[in-house]
């Protein structure tokens, strides 16, 4: 459908844009909904994983004999039970799930057991003897890039990386256009600053959990909490060297993911234990396992240089981004480098990015992966330029805002985008005019995310009683059953409560990409609308048969088939229910399908506005007021769009203020629990106000844009800018924990006194 883009004509919606009750609500408020750890099977064993205490160590040998002989133990596995797949990505995933020749980070899995009880499994883990040769380690991105750094794995460097770096640097990228040096010359003021951000974790409340069964004829069933059951099947069947059709993966309800459940950590281990023991095996990660050995974000080190004229025109921008993504190559800095200056219409811009390996867990996606850090750095420098030149930060952003026709730094020319609308809405909002008290500061930041579509497959069945069943393949992580059902109801012209949306296992539909890239409401919605259109065409054909007229002479309107005009014949409209009731008599069941590699996901922009107060004696920051402005294209269920905006904002607040991976000198994670990995709690926060803007995405029939990810991008800089203005000193390192803020304040105090 490349050249068949949708119309942007305004249309009247009946269901889309309303706020019906979500269909899975009752299950989730009564405790009936089944999540990853909630299923049991007869004869089930408990699976437990032994993890490396060392950040970097060669595994000389693993002696499992005592564990195998222990009472109640039914299987013990190590890397020796697996065969490395040919595909490099699959190999990395397997080696991350089970260490081969080396333990690459604190918490890396080295062996696993399945036993009849938790206690027996725990006892068996202690009997496994691993002979480690401890190696020098590196966890900091700048250290890892130095030529003399301990190398995580040789031979992983792409041809794009230049000379002078450690082999840990796996790839280099560069984007941009124009002559930046000429641009800086035109500037009245240029600011260059260096920034660092620590790794954060998605922090989903539900730890990874799965239940695997394996039959002797090679069929397997896997129940797990995941953002994509088809991805799990593809990866696990490759690792287990089995045919995809022989592995059925059923997604549980999912207790949060935010990108962290777009890959596997324990599923291949459970499958191998189940295969070896011949019994169902359940593995549930502890919170400490989740933090040590699932997929946090990249940490970063960045240099940003921006020039501006006295009247606020940005003349050039240059960003150098260095990300570490754990012990395997990743492609995250590319997205940061493309997103860094996306909010600006620039004549001269250059971004460079380096990905590096360290002795940390393999990074996984986290909401707009790669973008929040890069945009934090850029938006901080823009803010400082505004301060220096005495300019209003929203005016400056409006003046330089990317718009339709802007050539983005990554080469693409934008179509209709909502950035200026968000900025104008922020400017006009009462929040922006509200007075600030002493010690308080206001910060603004733009945010951007690309949004994706991808492989999608939906079936829509019209039942004989006039109800509709939508079958889709993307786990409902935040209300998508509601939004998908609403789009089906809208297209068919039936009430929302006549539609039930089911998320199904891998045997029931073709491939669906993981719930990521803010793709579900966009892509699954698109496929659902197309499937509904197919069902409508079939229902028109059935009505035509009943009326004895040509199918082309029947149209669908308000939930009914109608003759298309006076010439077509004079028949009373037939409702969906009436057509469905006689479907058996008119040719059999009525269904619509749509299968597509969806494109046309429109980019998404947002603007955040925040007020904070900094305690000058302790460096504590209190968030006083927060408003999110975001372009949703078309908000299908506004409650859940607001929910995405609020949830992303608060995750960003956590990233900005308190969340961080803390590694000790010994390379071990110091804060592997919710006590010291500090996600925001209810009492930390004010209400998060939201303003939804709707600039329709021309790539979707209803104008929908993904909304899930953009909201985590602006808070880092919005909070940093607010804190820096409140404290009177520029903060350049995240998180802005109280000791960091107080140290910055103390460093600035004698200087201020001297001036």
């Amino acid at each position, binding site marked *: 459908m490349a050249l068949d883009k949708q119309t942007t004509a305004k249309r009247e919606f009946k269901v889309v844009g309303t706020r019906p009750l979500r269909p899975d609500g009752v299950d989730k*408020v009564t*405790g009936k909904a089944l999540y990853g750890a909630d299923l049991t099977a007869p004869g089930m064993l408990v699976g437990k994983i032994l993890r490396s205490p060392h950040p970097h160590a060669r595994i000389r040998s693993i002696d499992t004999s005592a564990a195998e002989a222990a009472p109640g133990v039914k299987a013990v596995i190590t890397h020796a039970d697996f065969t490395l797949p040919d595909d490099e990505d699959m190999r990395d995933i397997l080696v991350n799930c089970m260490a081969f020749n080396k333990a690459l980070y604190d918490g890396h899995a080295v062996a696993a057991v399945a036993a009849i009880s938790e206690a027996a499994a725990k006892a068996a883990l202690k009997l496994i003897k691993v002979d480690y040769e401890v190696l020098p380690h590196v966890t900091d991105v700048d250290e890892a890039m130095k030529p003399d750094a301990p190398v995580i794995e040789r031979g992983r460097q792409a041809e794009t990386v230049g000379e002078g770096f450690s082999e840990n640097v796996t790839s280099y990228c560069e984007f941009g256009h124009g002559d930046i040096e000429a641009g800086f010359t035109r500037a009245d003021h240029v600011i260059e600053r260096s920034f660092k951000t620590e790794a954060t974790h998605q922090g989903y409340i539900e730890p990874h959990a799965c239940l695997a069964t394996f039959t002797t004829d090679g069929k397997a069933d896997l129940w797990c909490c995941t953002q994509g059951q088809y991805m799990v099947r593809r990866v696990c069947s490759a690792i287990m060297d089995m045919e995809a059709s022989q592995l059925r993966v059923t997604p549980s309800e999912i207790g*949060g993911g935010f990108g962290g459940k777009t890959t596997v950590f324990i599923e291949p281990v459970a499958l191998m234990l189940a295969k070896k023991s011949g019994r169902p095996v359940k593995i549930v990660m502890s*919170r400490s396992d989740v933090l040590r050995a699932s997929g946090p974000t990249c940490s970063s080190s960045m240099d940003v240089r921006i020039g501006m004229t006295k009247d606020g025109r940005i003349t050039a921008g240059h960003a150098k981004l260095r990300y570490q993504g754990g012990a395997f190559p990743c492609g995250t800095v590319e997205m940061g480098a493309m997103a860094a200056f996306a909010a600006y219409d620039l004549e001269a811009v250059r971004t460079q990015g380096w990905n590096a390996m360290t002795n940390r867990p393999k990074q996984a996606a986290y909401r707009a992966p790669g973008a929040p850090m890069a945009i934090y750095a850029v938006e901080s420098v823009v803010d400082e330029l505004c301060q220096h030149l005495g300019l209003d930060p929203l005016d400056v952003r409006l003046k330089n805002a990317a718009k339709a026709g802007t050539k983005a730094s990554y080469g693409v020319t934008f179509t209709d985008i909502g950035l200026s609308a968000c900025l104008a809405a922020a400017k006009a909002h009462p929040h922006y005019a509200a007075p600030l008290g002493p010690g308080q500061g206001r910060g603004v930041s733009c945010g951007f995310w690309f949004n994706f579509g991808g492989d999608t497959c939906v079936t829509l069945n019209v039942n004989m009683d006039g109800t509709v069943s939508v079958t889709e393949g993307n786990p409902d992580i935040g209300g998508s059953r509601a939004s998908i059902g609403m789009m089906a109801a809208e297209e068919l012209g039936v009430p929302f409560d006549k539609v039930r949306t089911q998320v199904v296992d891998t045997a029931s539909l073709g491939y669906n990409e993981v719930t990521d890239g803010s793709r579900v409401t966009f892509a699954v919605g698109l496929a659902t609308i197309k499937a509904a259109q197919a069902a409508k065409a079939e229902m028109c054909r059935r009505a035509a048969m009943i009326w004895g007229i040509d199918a082309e002479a029947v149209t669908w309107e308000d939930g009914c088939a109608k003759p298309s005009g006076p010439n077509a014949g004079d028949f009373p409209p037939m409702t969906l229910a009436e057509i469905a009731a006689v479907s058996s008599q008119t040719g059999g069941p009525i269904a619509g399908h749509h299968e597509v590699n969806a494109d046309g996901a429109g980019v998404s922009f947002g603007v955040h506005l925040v007020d904070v107060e900094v305690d000058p004696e302790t460096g504590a920051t209190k968030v006083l007021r927060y408003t999110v402005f975001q372009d949703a294209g078309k908000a299908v269920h506004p409650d859940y769009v*607001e929910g995405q905006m609020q*949830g992303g904002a608060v995750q960003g607040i956590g990233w900005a203020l308190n969340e961080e991976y803390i590694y000790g000198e010994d390379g071990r994670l110091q804060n592997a629990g919710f006590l010291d990995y500090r996600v925001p709690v209810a*009492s930390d*926060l004010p209400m998060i106000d939201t303003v939804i803007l709707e600039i329709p995405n021309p790539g979707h029939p209803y104008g929908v844009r993904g909304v899930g990810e953009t909201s985590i991008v602006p808070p880092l800089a919005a909070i940093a800018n607010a804190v820096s203005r409140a404290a009177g000193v520029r903060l350049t390192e995240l998180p802005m924990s109280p000791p960091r803020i107080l140290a910055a304040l103390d460093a600035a105090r004698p200087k201020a006194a001297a001036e």
Partner: protein
Amino acid sequence: MSRIHVTTSVNGDEVDFLCEPDETLLDALRNRLGLTGSKEGCGTGDCGACSVTLDGRLVCSCLVLAAEAEGREIATIEGMAEGEALHPLQKKFIEHAALQCGVCTPGILVATKALLEKNPDPSETEVRYWLAGNLCRCTGYDKIIRAVMDAAAELRRA
């Protein structure tokens, strides 16, 4: 380790089970009694997903030994609705879209019910501090707070 026989009351029903001496009440509820509505998010009392009441007092069931439950009264999320009738808090959570993934929801509902029984007219700040031990990663708490305030108002009217 010899197992311990525990007789206790869960949601008003007398139940008994055998447990290990070091087994938590949460594990016994989930694995012995099939009540999987209480969730384990951390196992260290930092997330509140396992909240239940023990003799009317709000606790983390991951920080209670199952053996301690002998002769006590436990209430879990499974006992909150009466038959088909949802508790007003449950209704308000759905109405206000106060859940996204829903995994923290049972614990938050149990905790909130305990709050409103103690303090039927809490301020927003009181609700936020009472719920500080119930982590929610999806919503940013906004819609949860709105749902609680609205449910409290409705319960006061009733």
